[in-house]
């Protein structure tokens, strides 16, 4: 191999430079600008970071975000597990149907899906209209513009993302172990809980971390289904920048969010290899 000759290095540099330059100018440089905002607006110093630690509103939004992200993670991974079992191990017809139910929502935009939940859950939506028409309730139930709506909408968005790491773990599992357990007299339930689930552990961890990380920075679904009442971190950043306007605090929250997500990603890659996630 003639690796490392001058013309080779030139070729590599010429081919790789455009994208690297583009991202340095359009992404790395402005990100440093945001970091600068967090230290200089409105006055120079650590004031914004101090505010993060003391401001009651910011604190309550952080806690709400962590709580919603944790609930959404449990709901999404459990639901994804149930449908992935059928997608990976079902009969051919069951597999096609499961794949359809996973991929169609996956490819539909986040706005359309959030709107679908508004159509179902709002006061004059499908569920309330139906419950009222059969006389089950007289006043419409409040199903959106609260945390319930946010959790439902976010779980719906994230289930397909939770499916892929689980599917990869279930595919790489040796079927003979399961058949051996059944052959030795273990019941279906017991085989599932003591053999199948433990063998897909890496998929469960990967899928939970992906869903959790995604939930932390979620913007569209909480903003629509929360109706301004259950504000999460991402919406708080938007409000600080466009409504208050308090660019410094918005920037400081962004920086904290990146650091937190970065730490979680580092944790993710300690437990799972990137290849197991797809």
């Amino acid at each position: 191999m003639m690796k490392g000759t001058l013309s080779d290095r030139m070729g590599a540099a010429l081919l790789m430079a455009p994208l690297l330059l583009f991202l340095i100018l359009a992404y790395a440089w402005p990100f440093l600008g945001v970091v600068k905002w967090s230290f200089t607006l409105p006055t120079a110093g650590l004031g914004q970071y101090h505010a993060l630690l003391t401001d009651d509103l910011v604190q309550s939004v952080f806690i709400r975000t962590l709580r919603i992200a944790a609930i959404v993670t449990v709901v999404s991974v459990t639901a994804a597990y149930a449908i992935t079992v059928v997608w990976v191990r079902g009969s051919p017809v069951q597999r096609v149907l499961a794949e359809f139910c996973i991929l169609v929502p996956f490819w539909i935009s986040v706005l359309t899906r959030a709107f679908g939940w508004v159509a179902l859950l709002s006061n004059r939506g499908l569920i309330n209209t139906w419950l009222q028409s059969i006389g089950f309730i007289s006043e419409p139930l409040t199903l959106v513009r609260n945390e319930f709506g946010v959790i439902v909408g976010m779980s719906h968005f994230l289930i397909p993302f939770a499916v892929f790491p689980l599917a990869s773990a279930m595919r790489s599992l040796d079927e003979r172990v399961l058949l051996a357990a059944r052959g030795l007299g273990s019941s279906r339930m017991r085989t599932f809980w003591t053999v199948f689930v433990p063998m897909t552990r890496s998929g469960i961890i990967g899928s939970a971390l992906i869903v959790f990380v995604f939930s932390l920075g979620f913007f569209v679904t909480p903003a629509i289904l929360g109706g301004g009442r259950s504000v999460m971190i991402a919406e708080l950043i938007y409000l600080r920048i466009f409504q208050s306007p308090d660019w410094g605090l918005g920037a400081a929250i962004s920086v904290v969010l990146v650091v937190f997500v970065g730490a979680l990603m580092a944790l993710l890659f300690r437990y799972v290899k990137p290849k197991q996630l797809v």
Partner: protein
Amino acid sequence: MPTYRPGPVSLILAVLVALFLLMPLLAVIPVSLTPSRMLAMPTGELSLRHYRSLIEDPRWLESILLSLRIGMVSSIFSTVLALTFSLGVWMFQPRFTAALVGFVLLPMVVPPVVSAVTLYFLLTSVSGLTSFFGYDTWLGVAMAHSVMTVPFATVLILVSLSQLDRRIDLAARGLGAGVWERATRVIMPNIKFGIVTAALLSFVLSWEEIGVTLFITSVNAITLPRLMWMGLRDNIDPAIAALSVILIVITVLVLAVRSVVNRQRTGN
């Protein structure tokens, strides 16, 4: 040979999850047919007025055209950048490849809202320099979308390069082909499918992008998702239901065609 199949409990749970996944997509159909001007279930009579308003209201058409233009420009731009970068990685395997690829993938892993603040900073900073490029301009949106889609395009092209047999490139090189010929006449024809997929995915991601767009547009560059957002936040406009039904039908058709094509490709 016996196989391990899911039992009845698993099947029932999976059906419940499937219903949960499809429910909101089905719910928009009756809402789109309501004769009322507000979001409501049709009572008795059905109407296509909201489908008609999609054609008659110029705002919808304008935003669709704008989204198409932004999608095409940003998709071409990000695919070309991703392609040259990936060719550089594959052909020369330079040092620090892992770090460079990691850097390129950053916009994909950083929370979208932080990327949105970053691009807002960028576009408001350059707004003072020119009037056609910057905050709330279509070119600014196209560039911001390129930042967000280029990691996905790069991943797809790198994956299809990784399945390519290195020996055909070595043969071309041994026979005296230069870098340009190797890239355009040997490597690229072999990863055509990956390049097209990267361009399509970039387009789709730009077409439905809302998180970043919300931060970098206000009154001029109203893309389709931005217009839907406005209709969803204030007074919910049932035209959104009609639009959603159309988008869902297109998605289902594309997926169906793709699965048929895939079956034929693997069948041969």
